Each structure stands twice: as C-alpha cells, then as structure tokens.
C-alpha cells in the first residue's frame, strides 16, 4: 500500500469537524466549570472553560435541598422499573413476531404500526389514566412509555436475523419455546437489548412530559420537574430584568444563582454521562441494523 499524503482536503475537513465537535462540547465544559467556580468568577467571565476560585458551595447547597433527593429517588425508581418491565415486554412480544410462520403476524404488525401513526391525543390519554386511578402516581411515569412500536420493530428485526438452525437444534433436543427464548435468543440479542436499555433508560431519566401532565405532589416529582423549578428562576431573570437596571426586582424574585443551576444540571446529567461511553458501541450497531432494514 502506498503512503497516503495528507491533502488540503483532509486538513480542511478535519478542522471543520474539530470546530463542530468543540461547539458540541463547549456548553458541557462551560456548565461544569461554572458550577465549581465562584459566582464572582462567573460574573467576571461567563464564557470560562477553566475554573477560577474553585468552590463546591453550589453543590453543597443543592445537596441540602430535600426535593433533590426525593426527586432523584423517584427518577431512579421510575427508570429502573421502566427499563426492566419494558425490556421484558419487548423480548416477549418481539420474539413471536420475529417468526415468519406465526399466524396473524401481519395483522398484529399492522396494529403495532397503527399506534405509531395515530393516537387519541392528550385528553383521552389523561382520561384513561384518571379512570385507572394512576394520576399523581409514579406508575403514570412508567406506563405510557413502556412499549413503543419503533423499539419493538428494532428488536423484532434483530431477532429475525438470528440463525434459525440454533433454535432447530435445541428443539430437536426437546427444548420448549420459553427455554429457547431465554437461553438461546436472549443471550444472542445482547447488542439490541443493550441499545434498548440505553434508549429507554435515557427516555425515562429525561422524561418531562408525563411528569408535567400526570404528577401533582412535590414528593412525587421526578428529577426533571425539580430541575425545571430551579431553572424557572433563570427564566424569570431572562424575562423580567433588563440590563441590570432593576436588580432589586430580580432579587425579590428569589432568583437562583447560575452556579446553583449549573451544579443541578451537572448532577442530573451525571448518570447518563457515566453510562453513555460503555453502551455507545452497541447502539450504533443496534440502530444501524434497525434503520437499514426499516
């Protein structure tokens, strides 16, 4: 193989990509740096990417907030139960649908796809949850997102590509369908299960919509409602104060300092940032498989 010389094209291309990547990274770095800097250091230079007068005051303050811990716990409960139940439901439903010989398969697939195209809308959904007595319960955060047509099709497509021979061999040895599903198909579906775990976990972790619609009591708030409460302070500054001419009014509104908000943002993002690098290699594979086949 001939040595490739670095062309102008490569240099330009890599430079532009580097700039875009840095733009993606910048807010994360800035938010983190500000969260561990003093407020005066932030006022002096809000753009900083290197901490100054390092302090963990903001973190100490949010850690003392009772709603933070209850909302954190609620979000963990919702995420864990949502992922476990959801994955079980995806596995059980996708496996029969991956069998081409299954009678009624097309009808079921049409019913699944139809749910992706048409829905009752906000009020009928709300009404249903109300009739089931689920308003203002954590279950209302778990249930609406348990099964989506898109994820189900991703998993079904993956399972269709598992070689039939493996199952046939087990069947000849007298294995039943549950045994085949959980001992052969599930272990072979690692990449797609990991992908869906990440997708659904992130979905539950970040979910704001169900919370704002179904949750009332502060002690049932998930993290995103708590975070919004912290951020509303900033929205008020942004809306009501001009160029600092009515700072007194701003103070009256009990505005949360930026460092405090940023510390909360970081604390909320930490679990995702921790899991993300480990699952990243799986989801690219998972989504590509699903999307190409579609």
């Amino acid at each position, binding site marked *: 193989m001939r040595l490739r010389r670095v062309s102008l*094209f490569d240099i330009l291309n*890599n430079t*532009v*990509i580097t700039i875009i990547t840095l733009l*993606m990274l910048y*807010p994360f770095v800035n938010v983190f740096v500000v969260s561990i800097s003093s407020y005066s250091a*932030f006022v002096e230079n*809000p*753009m900083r990417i290197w901490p100054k007068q390092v302090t963990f005051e903001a973190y100490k303050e949010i850690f003392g907030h009772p709603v933070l811990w209850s909302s954190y716990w609620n979000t963990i409960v919702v995420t864990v139960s949502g992922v476990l139940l959801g994955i079980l*439901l995806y596995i*059980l*439903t996708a*496996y*029969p649908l991956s069998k081409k010989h299954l009678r009624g398969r097309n009808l*079921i697939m049409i019913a699944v*796809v139809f749910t*992706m*195209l*048409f*829905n*009752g*809308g*906000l*009020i*009928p*959904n*709300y*009404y*249903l949850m109300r009739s089931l007595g689920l308003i203002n319960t954590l279950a209302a955060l778990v249930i609406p997102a348990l*099964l989506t047509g898109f994820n189900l099709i991703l998993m079904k497509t993956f399972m269709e590509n598992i070689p039939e021979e493996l199952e046939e061999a087990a069947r000849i040895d007298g294995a039943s*369908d549950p045994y085949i599903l959980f001992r052969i198909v599930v272990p072979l579906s690692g990449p797609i299960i990991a992908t869906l775990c990440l997708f659904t976990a992130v979905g539950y*972790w*970040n979910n*704001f*919509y169900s919370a*704002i*619609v179904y949750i009332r009591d502060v002690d049932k708030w998930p993290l*995103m409602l708590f*975070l919004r409460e912290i*951020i509303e302070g*900033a*929205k008020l500054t*942004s809306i009501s*104060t*001009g160029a*600092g001419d009515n700072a007194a009014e*701003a103070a009256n509104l009990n505005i949360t300092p*930026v460092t405090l908000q*940023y510390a909360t*943002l970081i604390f*909320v*993002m930490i679990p*995702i940032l921790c899991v*993300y690098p480990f699952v990243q290699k799986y989801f*690219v594979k998972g*989504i*590509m498989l699903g*999307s*190409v086949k*579609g």
Partner: protein
Amino acid sequence: MRYLIKNKWLYVFLIPGLLYLLIFKYVPMFGIVIAFKKLSIVKGIWGSDWVGFQNFETLFQSAHFIRVLRNSILLSVYQILWGFPAPILLALMLNEVRQMLFKRITQTILYLPHFISWVVLAGIVINFLSPTSGLVNQIITSFGHEPVKFLMEPGYFRSIIVSAEIWKGVGWGTIIYLAAMTGIDPTLYESAKIDGASRLQRIRYITIPGIATTIIILLLLNLGNILDNGFEQVFLLYNPVTYETADIFETYTYRIGLQDGRLSYATAVGLFKSVVGFVLILSANYAARKISGKSIW
C-alpha cells in the same frame, strides 16, 4: 388447532404486549368521542351529551387556531430548511475522515447532546441568552451594542428553537446517513479514482447519489410530521409574550385542556392534529414508495 397447540407459547408470549397496546394505545383512540361531546366529569364519557361538531366549529372560528396552525407549520418548515441538511453535510464530512481514532472520538462527542434532556438544554439556552449575564449578550455588549432580551422577542423564538434542535440532534442524525454510506459499493470509488475523480467529485457523483434514497425517505417522513414540533422544547422556552410565534398544537392542547380544563375542546384540537397528521404521514409513505420503490414501514 394442531398449529395453535404446537405454537401455544408464542401466543402466550404475545398476551402482555397486546393487552398493553389495547389498553394504553387503542382505548384512548376511542376516547376521542370526547371531542363530539360536552364532557361532564360527573356523567363520564358515555353519559355526557353529544354536541356534534360544535367543538370543531369553535376551533375553526378561533383566532388561536390560525395562529397555532401557522406556528406549527412554520416551525417545522424552518426545522426542515435548516435542520434537515445539517446532518447530511456532517455525515458527508465524517465519511471522508480517514483517521479512525479521530473519527471515533468526534462521533462519540457529536452523539452526546442527543441524550441530554430538553429541560437541561433549556436551562443552558436560558442562561446563555440571559440579558444580564448571558454569554451571547456579553459578546453583543462587548461590541458596544445594547443587550437583547432574546426570550422576550417573538421574532427570535423560531431561530432559538431551531438552533437548539440542530445542536442537540445534528450528530445523532448522521447515524442513518453513515449507515447508508457503508452500503455503497467500494469498487465505485476505486474506479472513479482511476478515472481521476477528485475527492469532491467522488462525493458529488458517488456518495450523494448513494444516499439519495435515504435522503428522500427521511425528507418525506419529516414532511409527514409537519404538525409535530415536540412539546418539551417549546413549553420550556416560551412564555405569554412569545405565544404569538411560539404556541403550537402540543402546547395549546396542554394549556386549554389541563390548565383551563376545557377537556372537550382540547380533545377536538388534538383530534384535528391526529387526523391531519395521519393523512400527511400516509401520503408521505405513499410518495416514498412511488419515488424510491421503498416505503417507510
């Protein structure tokens, strides 16, 4: 019968999933009768009085309806105009990267914003645009201009939302195009190289035609979703001053339904959106099949 007994487990597996779909997806579809009734909580859905199309008449005569419809469509149009080409360009650039380590690192970072919630992103946007301490206004004032109250100006709302959506989604959007590019026959590039085609020419004549089908399908899919703007980003960044350009179907339904308690009217708004959306998406799928021979599902 023999078939059923032999495959009984497969059907048993299906029961929970199908029950779930039936209760939580199909039952609400019947709930849309609320749109044709005057819902009384005491009498329940079935006991409430029918009012025919009265809720829809109110809707179509309302000044809000035109505003909401215009905002939903315009926001989508801007999103398609600016947001749709962005991941294609980025994917074309990433595809040309030869240094695998560099590619892997940048891709990891580019996908990351997709996993950040809108609440977090709204927090960042609000702070970056703040008139007093915001980064953007710091830059503006350092050039001697007056600070701008971005979130108070209806004229800026769409630009803010579209920019935020691009920042969040552009990297993630490249995945599907990169997948399509790996499907292009490498011998095409080899022969083009022998014929003396430059890098740009190879992109122009091989890569872009190679992903054209994917582009068309995704574009049609976007057009089919033109009434869906996403509730969270708008809800978290708008305020009564910017309703004029910001209020969309999702936020309007939420406000009149759950905040003002006009359940029947809100259901009518939701039903209008669902039906138009359904027709649009079916048309998009039909068009995709006609043009590319492939359909979305």
